[in-house]
């Protein structure tokens, strides 16, 4: 497992205490899990994701990631409606391990865009990991 100083935490993302990240791309938000989360879970074998059109409130469970011997719930960082799913993960869940920040899971249209500002910055998230 990675030491904390080995983790990659890009500055341009918002993070949650549950180790998801959110990225603004124009009007929409892409959501994935952090380098820390993928490293803790180990080899990811399956991603269970919602369907387009599902709506969630901030903090709702929207899917799960599975390794061989663990299941990790995914919690949505912001409220909104799912407008796209990363279907690549269906066949290649290992992409989450290889490149966690390009391997987004869902894209949403946020219902409360200002929720983005409540997310943790990279440094605040690192402080959280340091405990």
């Amino acid at each position, binding site marked *: 497992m990675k030491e904390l100083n080995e983790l990659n935490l890009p500055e341009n993302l918002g993070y949650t205490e549950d180790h998801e990240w959110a990225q603004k791309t124009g009007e929409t938000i892409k959501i994935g899990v952090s380098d820390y989360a993928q490293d803790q879970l180990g080899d990811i*074998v399956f991603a269970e994701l919602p369907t387009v059109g599902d709506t969630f409130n901030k903090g709702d469970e929207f899917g799960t990631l599975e390794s*061989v011997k663990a299941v990790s719930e995914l919690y949505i960082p912001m409220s909104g409606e799912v407008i796209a799913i990363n279907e690549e993960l269906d066949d290649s869940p290992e992409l989450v391990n290889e490149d966690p920040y390009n391997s987004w899971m869902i894209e949403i249209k946020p219902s409360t865009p200002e929720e983005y500002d409540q997310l943790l910055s990279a440094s605040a998230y690192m402080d959280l990991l340091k405990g």
Partner: protein
Amino acid sequence: MKNGVGTSGLILDEPLLWEKGKKGRKGMSIPHSDVPQAPLDEELTGTPVDFPDLSEVDVVRHYTRLSQWNFGVDSGMYPLGSCTMKYNPKINEKQAATPQLAAAHPMLDDQYSQGVLQIMYELQNYLADITGLDAVSLQPAAGAHGELTGMLIFNAYHQSHDSKRTKILIPDTAHGTNPASAALCGYRAIALKSNENGMLDAADVRELMDEETAGIMLTNPNTLGLFEGQVRQIADIVHAKGGLVYGDGANMNAVLGVADMKKCGVDVLHLNLHKTFSTPHGGGGPGAGPVCVTKELEPFLPVPRAWKDGDIYRLEQDRKDSIGRVHGFHGNFGVLVRAYSYILSMGAEGLRKASQLAVLNANYIREQLKDTFHLPYPQPCMHECVFSDQLQKDYKVTTLDMAKRLIDYGFHPPTIYFPLIVHGAIMIEPTETECKEDIDQFIATMKEIAREAKEEPDKLRNAPQISKVRRLDEVQAARCPCLTGPTLPAEQ
């Protein structure tokens, strides 16, 4: 140290069934037809099923070779914690195969099946006696099935008291079957943390227990191998709020003749006959998970049960408060016969002695290995002891590596990574049927592995070396599941 019993032998390879055989062969005798062939609607007729055709010798060699890649209690020590892998007496197999019992049809009138009903009736009574509880159903087919039955009884009991309960207390040391069984009955599991000594505190239960909580599920001795000293106080608290106490009897092998489950405050208890009562586990099953209850809960037990009416054994047909059936017939009857035979062979004294020696063996191992491996809960244990890999961490060696290395030495590894509250857990349950010499050899092997961890860690990381296969790629198996062999073109 002396080498373990593990050595490489001649291991024969064997393909999959459908990679051998030839169309037209037959591996069993089929009676000649003595009746005319009857017409059959073509609409209903299927294409022939694509099974390989094998001769009798093909089949015998196939499975004999497969069996040689397996390790059972008859092969060697199998200290799999929480599984009670004790010796499975051969004589019990013979009893289960008694022709009259093996041929018994489950739907005949009682008068034609007295023998099987007698066995069920007497076994019900023996298990009640042994646990201290009042009434028994033999229907559940395994431990988890017993848990489900218990939860259905909880539900029926609360319903009969017009009480709607939605939660249940489950300790963090519990087997996963407990929350899963409770969830089937719609109960939300409330986690109960164990204290720094690995045990439950009555004070925590007092805080969480309320009138929306159906009760508590507890395993005693718990999965750390410790007897819950406050079980009686905990039961009193739960009862005071109208709740019930479920006892997971997975670890009963520790306390036969010592603990009285009714006095512990348990209302429903399941036993694992394939653990405590020596029936073979068959590489996955069948087990049997009889459920024992107090007088008060007897009306809710599944039907049918055996009872005695004068000199006649009968199956009760119906009981209005019963939860109904949880099995097509009478549970895993063949397993019940084995457990019945075991109890008759052991007698009261033998069963008590079994628990004493199981606990002696576990404590002996704990004492001999406590300086070699980290012991997160250092107090004396019951039938199993739980270590961790903390002392080996510095060498970048894990519990998994050590477990795999045990295979090279000819031992089945202990249970690993359970209970979840111990990081890198190594849970050792020797059982009473292991003799001192074998246990000494196991201890010496564990010490040798600890030495290797420090001095030759690669030996552990690359273990096992002499098994039929080396470590298998479980990630690949889960990413691209291959759960059946190929479908042949003819079938498509």
